[in-house]
């Protein structure tokens, strides 16, 4: 702690982060995770415009919620069942910029899927980020199953399921939360409510302002937090994780966030969102907000910030270079990993369609 800080803490209020047990060093790490995620995200859009990344789906505006939440977890111990906006979350759990970019380029070395999935379909066993599909909400029962296994095996592990507010309308979400409630599982469900599911507004998605209102019906605690405030999310998540680890069951957190970009590179949100709404939203950047807090608290200076930004930019550039140069997946590998053992009898049929494939196996 700087002298100034110490002075402030002793003479006046305790800073919010200190009350949460977050050291300045920890804050810097968190901030860097947000900066890196944002930089990767923006770079991805550039690659898209350059025709190098055919598909982009973005987490810009969600970073505070994700990094705030991740800071309450133990990477490599706790589990994340993420969704496609969780770039910052995954970075905070241990995914590297390089690993992400290999996915953006759909390279053979992409650790999430070997280039089989669209970018941002995360998965990394090393970091206990489970493999995810595009089909929303399917990961929530998976997280419940992970939590059940942890509980029944006596492991001190927490599972986090992360998804958008629209995805809570799916049956799988309900079924999983009900299950988690019944068994008081060490599960946290983090809903990132950005007011839209592609173009469908909140009012057509649910009749309550906060999906956390549903927690009670599952016998669990529900909280609504400002997802643009990294410390607020952290606080909610910390409590939830404590609850989970002490056998008090699951928590549902609704973090209100902003979707800065269109849903994906295939969308144009100006078609269905009013201009004023977009402008107002962009003024509430969670990254700015955290920076201002850190500057205020002198955890960051303009210089250290500049340095960090540069570091991130460089990390991103290196990742891009590496990914760009990395080899594409081999068509001969199309048939790999269908099963643990290759089964000749499962390879059947005629025509060049699968001859090509068969011939190389």
């Amino acid at each position, binding site marked *: 702690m700087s002298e100034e800080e110490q002075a402030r803490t002793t003479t006046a209020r305790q800073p919010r982060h200190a009350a949460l047990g977050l050291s300045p060093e920890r804050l810097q790490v968190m901030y860097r995770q947000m900066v890196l995620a944002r930089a990767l995200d923006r770079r991805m859009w550039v690659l898209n415009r350059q025709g190098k990344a055919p*598909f982009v789906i973005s987490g810009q505006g969600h970073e505070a919620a994700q990094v705030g939440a991740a800071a309450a977890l133990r990477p490599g111990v706790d589990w994340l069942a993420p969704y496609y906006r969780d770039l910052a979350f995954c970075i905070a759990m241990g995914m590297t910029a390089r690993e992400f970019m290999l996915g953006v380029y759909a390279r053979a070395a992409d650790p999430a899927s070997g280039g089989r999935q669209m970018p941002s379909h995360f998965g990394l066993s090393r970091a206990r980020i489970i493999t995810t599909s595009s089909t929303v909400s399917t990961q929530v029962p998976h997280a419940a199953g992970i939590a059940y296994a942890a509980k029944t095996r006596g492991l001190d592990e927490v599972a986090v399921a992360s998804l958008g507010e629209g995805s809570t309308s799916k049956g799988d979400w309900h079924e999983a939360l009900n299950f988690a409630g019944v068994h008081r599982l060490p599960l946290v469900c983090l809903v990132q409510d950005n007011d839209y599911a592609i173009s469908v507004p909140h009012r057509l998605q649910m009749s309550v302002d906060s999906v956390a209102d549903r927690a009670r019906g599952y016998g669990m605690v529900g909280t609504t937090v400002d997802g643009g405030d990294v410390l607020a999310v952290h606080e909610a998540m910390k409590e939830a994780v404590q609850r989970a680890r002490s056998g008090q069951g699951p928590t549902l957190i609704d973090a209100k966030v902003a979707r800065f970009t269109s849903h994906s590179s295939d969308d144009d949100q100006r078609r269905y969102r009013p201009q004023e709404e977009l402008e107002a939203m962009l003024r509430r950047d969670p990254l700015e907000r955290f920076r201002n807090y850190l500057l205020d608290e002198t955890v960051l200076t303009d210089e250290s910030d500049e340095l960090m930004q540069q570091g991130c930019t460089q990390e991103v550039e290196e990742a891009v270079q590496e990914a760009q140069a990395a080899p594409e997946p081999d068509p001969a590998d199309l048939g790999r990993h269908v099963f643990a053992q290759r089964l000749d009898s499962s390879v059947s049929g005629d025509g060049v369609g699968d001859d090509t494939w068969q011939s190389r196996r």
Partner: protein
Amino acid sequence: MAVKTLIEGVREALTEEMERDDRVWVLGEDVGKKGGVFLATEGIYSRFGEARVLDTPLAESCIVGVAIGAALNGLIPVAEIQFADFIHPAFDQIVSEAARIRYRSNGDYSCPIVVRAPFGGGVHGGLYHSQSVEAFYAHVPGLKVVIPSTPEDAKGLLKAAIRDPDPVMFFEHKKAYRLIKGEVPDGEYVTPIGTAAVRRQGTNVTCVAWGLMVHHCLEAAEAVAPEGISVEVIDLRTLQPLDRETILRSVEKTARAMVVHEDNLTGGFGAEVAAIIADKGFEHLDAPVTRVAGPDVPAMPFNHPQEEAFLPNPEKIAAAMRRLAAY
């Protein structure tokens, strides 16, 4: 007649049917202001308003279930499933409910709904935006399964589907949406469900396909024509009910048959077509019934080389035609 894209055919059918009958109700994710992720319903929201074009919550089982209920109470719902890949959560409502309303009630109730979904790959959709799902539904009695391959049919068949008294699964190949252009007749017409179209006459090989594959087969047929191989290309258009007569008549003439689909081989609908030919057309056959299909991997990868390797294309199809003709 004007040249239009396949998706324009879809859009025109929806618009005209909504004009014609105010019970027709469009529902689905993002079908409203946004006009659907492929813009199939573009302009429909501004024309007919929220009461008739509903952006539903993100819940496919609910979309189909609500459509069934609405049909029971007098509406004619046309539900859009955003991608065929995301139709699986609605499987139970389609298979165990929609398909059986009439049968299980012994005709006391019926279920006139249409479920539209874009399917198919070749657009960098990856594992979850590329699937073909027609085989699942063509196996379910009580459902009709329609897959248009031309703009004219997209319009005429969708109109027929909306007017059909029973549930119709209507699958639109997403790569064909803008790639496939063709003449669309002016004025009102309806294309009956249940008849295949012979898209190309031929005498040596019968080639059966649907959706985008029809066009690949036509291209392949042209490629082998100079070699003296005359291929008859049949566009099934509707898988259920299946026009067996057109298939068998052709096989009787050619004595050689192949089926082409994008869906993975094993248990694909090509198996059914091949099985029918091997049974009812056996006495005419001079060669093995051949299938060209996607390989048996869970789905089509996102990366270009593996996507390419997965997909049947004119070259692969032409090679199979040559092998078959030479048998």
